[in-house]
C-alpha cells in the first residue's frame, strides 16, 4: 500500500519520459552498447576458434602420415639352413636367426646388377633393422616355410618411408633429342650425344655460378665493412671463391662439374640410370646408379634427361637412394598399409619401429593407480567436510589448504614424490605405481572440490525428507545425497583424470622419462606415459619422429576428448531437476 502511495507522489517531471530526444538517445546508446558487447564476444570466440582449428589442423597434418607405413612386398627365398632342422619347433630360435642375408638377397634380386659395395650398402639400408620381423613371425608360426619362397612385406626404414610419403624431391624428365652413346654399363661412364642436349642445363648451371659469385661478393663486402682484422682472411677467401666462380661463369662452353648444392641431373638410358657429375654441351660423364642393360646407342627419344629438383644436399634421400626407391616403386614392390605397429610396439630408436603401446599401457596403469586412490579418498574427504565436519577453525584451515593444493605447480608434486615415494619409502623408480601416487596427490584437490560442489548442489530438501522419515544422518548421506551427487562427482573425477593423463612435469621428476622399449605389464615395471613419450620424441632429431610426435599427440587428444565427452555425457544423462 505504502509503495503505491509513494510512487504516485513522484512529481511528473521526474518520471521517465520516453518521447524526449534525450530519452531516445539513451535508448539508442543502450542498443549500441549491447551490439558492441555482442561483437566483443563474437570476436573473442572467433579468435579462440581460429587458434584451436589451426592447432588441430597442424597436428593432424603432421600426425596423419605416421599412421601409414610403407613396406616392400618382395619374394623372399628362405634358405633351408636358416634354422637347424632340430630347432625348427623352437619359436625363439626361429626369431633369433639372422635374417639380414635373407632380406638383402631378396632386395638384390629385385634390383639386379649392383656391383659396388657402397651401392649395395645403400640398398640394404633402405630396409629397417626390423624389416624381417614379419617374416620371422610367419616362419615361427609355420616352420614349413623354411626352404620355400615367401612373398612378404619387408618394413622400410624411416627415411625410405618418408620418401614415399612425399618428403622427397620433385622429379622431372624430358626425352633426349640426339643419339646417346654410353661408354659402359656400370661404374663411371661417359655418355656422348649427337645433339647438344645438355646445352640448356649447362647454361642454367653457368647462370647459377654467376649468381653465387655475385652473392659471395655481396657477403665479402658486408664482412669488409665491419673492418675487423680477424675477418680479413675470411673476406679474402670469399673474394677468391667469388673470382673462381666468376671465371667459370665467364667461359660458357667449358665443361662443368655438378655438386650437391645444385639440382641433380640424371640420364635414364638402356634401363639404367646415370648420375651426371660433369657436363658439357653434348657429353656428360657420371656414375651409374642403376646398371645399364647394354652399351648400345639409344636413339632419339629413347633416353631421358631426369632432374631431381631439390639439391642432394638439401634432402634426406641421396640420389642413389632416390634411384633405388623410384625403381622399387616402378616394380610395384611398394606396399602402403595402416601402421599397426604404431599401436602394438614399444618405443624404439628406429622411428619406423617405434610405437606408443608402451606409453599407452604406462598411462593406463598410472591412471588406474590414480583413480583407485583418488576416487575413494577424494569422495570420502568431500563427504566428511561437507556433511559431517563441524565448522571450526581447523576445518576452515583444511578447506583453505585443499584449495591451495589445487593451485600448487605440478612439478612440486613431482619433487614431493621423488623425496617421499622414491627416497623415503624406496619405491621403484619410473614405476606406474609411483606415477599414480604422484598424480593422485595432484588430482585429489580437484576431486575433493568438485565432489563438494556436487554434494552442495543436492537440495537440502532431499536431506530433510530423508531425516524426516527417520533416516540417520549417515543413511541420508549414503542413500540419497551421495547417489544424487554422483554424476557431478564423476564429471569432476573424469576431468581430473584427463588432467592427470596430460600431466608431464611431475612424472619427469620420478624418472618416468626413461627410454623404455618393453611394454610394461605391472605396476612396478619401468614405464613411461603418453605425454612424456611425446616429450621424448619431440626432442629427437629424426624427421620421422616429428611425425610420430604429432601422431602421439593425436592419440592423446583422442583420449582426452573421449574422457571429456564421457564427462559431458554423464552430466547430461543424470542431470535432474528438483
Amino acid at each position, binding site marked *: 500500500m505504502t509503495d503505491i502511495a509513494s510512487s504516485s507522489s513522484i512529481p511528473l517531471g521526474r518520471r521517465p519520459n520516453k518521447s524526449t530526444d534525450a530519452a531516445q538517445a539513451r535508448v539508442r546508446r543502450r542498443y549500441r552498447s549491447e551490439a558492441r558487447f555482442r561483437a566483443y564476444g563474437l570476436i573473442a570466440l572467433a579468435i579462440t576458434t581460429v587458434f584451436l582449428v589451426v592447432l588441430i589442423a597442424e597436428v593432424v597434418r603432421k600426425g596423419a602420415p605416421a599412421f601409414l607405413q610403407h613396406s616392400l612386398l618382395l619374394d623372399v627365398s628362405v634358405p633351408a639352413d636358416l634354422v637347424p632342422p632340430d630347432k625348427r619347433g623352437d619359436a625363439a630360435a626361429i626369431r633369433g636367426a639372422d635374417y639380414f642375408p635373407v632380406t638383402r638377397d631378396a632386395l638384390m634380386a629385385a634390383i639386379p646388377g649392383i656391383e659396388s659395395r657402397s651401392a649395395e650398402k645403400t640398398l640394404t639400408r633402405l630396409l629397417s633393422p626390423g624389416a624381417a620381423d614379419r617374416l620371422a613371425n610367419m616362419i615361427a608360426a609355420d616352420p614349413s616355410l623354411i626352404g620355400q619362397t615367401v612373398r612378404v612385406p619387408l618394413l622400410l626404414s624411416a627415411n625410405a618411408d618418408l620418401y614415399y610419403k612425399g618428403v622427397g624431391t620433385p622429379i622431372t624428365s624430358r626425352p633426349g633429342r640426339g643419339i646417346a652413346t654410353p661408354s659402359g654399363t656400370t661404374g663411371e661412364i661417359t655418355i656422348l650425344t649427337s645433339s647438344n642436349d645438355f646445352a640448356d642445363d649447362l647454361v642454367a648451371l653457368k647462370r647459377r655460378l654467376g649468381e653465387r659469385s655475385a652473392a659471395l661478393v655481396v657477403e665479402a663486402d658486408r664482412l669488409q665493412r665491419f673492418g675487423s682484422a680477424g675477418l680479413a682472411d675470411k673476406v679474402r677467401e670469399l673474394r677468391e671463391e667469388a673470382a673462381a666462380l666468376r671465371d667459370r661463369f665467364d667461359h660458357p662452353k667449358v665443361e662443368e662439374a655438378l655438386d650437391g648444392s645444385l639440382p641433380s641431373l640424371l640420364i635414364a638410358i638402356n634401363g639404367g640410370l646415370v648420375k651426371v657429375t660433369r657436363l658439357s654441351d653434348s657429353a656428360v660423364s657420371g656414375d651409374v646408379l642403376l646398371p645399364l642393360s647394354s652399351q648400345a646407342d639409344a636413339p632419339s627419344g629413347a633416353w631421358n634427361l631426369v632432374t631431381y629438383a631439390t639439391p642432394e644436399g638439401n634432402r634426406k634421400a641421396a640420389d642413389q637412394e632416390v634411384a633405388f626407391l623410384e625403381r622399387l616403386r616402378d616394380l610395384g614392390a611398394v606396399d602402403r598399409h595402416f601402421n599397426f605397429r604404431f599401436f602394438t610396439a614399444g618405443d624404439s630408436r628406429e622411428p619406423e619401429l617405434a610405437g606408443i603401446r608402451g606409453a599407452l599401457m604406462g598411462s593406463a596403469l598410472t591412471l588406474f593407480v590414480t583413480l583407485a586412490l583418488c576416487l575413494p579418498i577424494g569422495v570420502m574427504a568431500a563427504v566428511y567436510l561437507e556433511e559431517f565436519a*563441524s*565448522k571450526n577453525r581447523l576445518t576452515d584451515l583444511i578447506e583453505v589448504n585443499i584449495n591451495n593444493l589445487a593451485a600448487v605447480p605440478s612439478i612440486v608434486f613431482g619433487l614431493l614424490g621423488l623425496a617421499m615415494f622414491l627416497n623415503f619409502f624406496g619405491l621403484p623408480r619410473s614405476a606406474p605405481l609411483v606415477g599414480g601416487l604422484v598424480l593422485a596427490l595432484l588430482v585429489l584437490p580437484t576431486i575433493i572440490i568438485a565432489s563438494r560442489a556436487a554434494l552442495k548442489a543436492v*537440495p537440502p*530438501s*532431499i*536431506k*530433510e*525428507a*530423508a*531425516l*524426516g*522419515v*527417520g*533416516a*540417520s544422518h549417515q*543413511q541420508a548421506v549414503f*542413500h*540419497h545425497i551421495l547417489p*544424487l551427487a554422483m554424476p557431478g562427482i564423476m564429471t569432476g573425477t573424469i576431468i581430473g583424470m584427463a588432467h592427470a593423463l596430460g600431466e608431464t612435469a611431475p612424472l619427469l621428476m620420478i624418472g618416468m622419462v626413461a627410454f623404455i622399449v618393453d611394454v610394461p605389464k605391472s605396476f612396478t615395471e619401468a614405464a613411461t606415459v603418453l605425454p612424456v613419450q611425446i616429450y621424448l620424441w619431440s626432442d629427437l632429431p629424426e624427421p620421422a619422429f616429428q611425425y610420430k610426435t604429432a601422431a602421439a599427440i593425436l592419440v592423446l587428444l583422442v583420449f582426452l576428448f573421449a574422457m571429456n565427452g564421457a564427462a559431458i555425457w554423464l552430466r547430461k544423462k543424470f542431470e*535432474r*531437476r*528438483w
Partner: protein
Amino acid sequence: MAVEKSLTNEALAVRPQPAKAAKVMARGVDVHYGAKHALKEVTVDIPEKGVMAFIGPSGCGKSTFLRCINRMNDTIPTCRVTGKITIDDNDIYDPDLDVVQLRARVGMVFQKPNPFPKSIFENVAYGPRIHGLARSKTDLEEIVTSSLRRAGLFEEVKDRLGDSGTSLSGGQQQRLCIARAIAVEPDIILMDEPCSALDPIATARIEELMGELMESYTIVIVTHSMQQAARVSQRTAFFHLGNLVEEGPTELIFNNPRDQRTQDYITGRFG
C-alpha cells in the same frame, strides 16, 4: 449467544488441563539461531489425535517450533534449543534419546513437496525399509499400498509405481510425501505449510486427507492461510515475534480472541 460464547471462552481459559495428558507438551522452549532469539518461552500442549494449527505472520517462529518437535533443528549448526518438550511424557531432548527413533515417531511433511528422485514405490518403501518394518517383500508391498491408499494417492498411481516420484503433479507429490510419512507408522505428523505450493484443488484434497488422518494421528500444521486453519484444525496457536500469543480451540481463536494482536492478525490488520 455472544454472551454464552464469551462465557465459554472464559470457562475454557480457566479450565485446568484435561485429565488425559497431552501428546506433546512444551514448557518454556527458547530457540536461538546464533544471536537471534527466534522463539521465546513457548509453553503449549498438543492433545492426542486431531489437528492443531500454528498461525502467525512470517518469521514469527511457528515453523521453528514445529521443527523442535522432531528435532529437525538439530541439522542447523547455529541453532540452540532450551526448555523442555515431551512426547508421551518422554523428554525428546534427553541426551540418551535416539533422534532417529524420535523422527520415526514424528513424521514430517514439508512446505515444498520433496519426493526422493526415485520411483513412487521406493519413496514410500524407504522409511519402512530402513526401520525394518517389513519382514518380506510382500509385507513391504502391503505397507506401500496401504500408505498410498491412506494418502488417497493409490488409485492415481497404482499402474505406475515404478515411475519417478518427481514426475507427479505438485499435489500428488505432496500426497506422496504424506504417504511416505505415514508409511513408518508415526504417532504425530508435522506439516510445515503443506499446501503453500499447491493450487486450490490440490489444497482441498490435502485438507480432506487431513480430516481423515486426524482420526488416527496427531497432526500439527503450520499455515499462513487462516481459512485453512479454521477449516482443518480443532485447536489453533497464534505466534507473533517469537512469542506464543494465544492458544485455544480454533473457533474461539477466530471468533473471540483474547489478545489484541490475535484480533489484529485474524482481521488482516497486519501480516
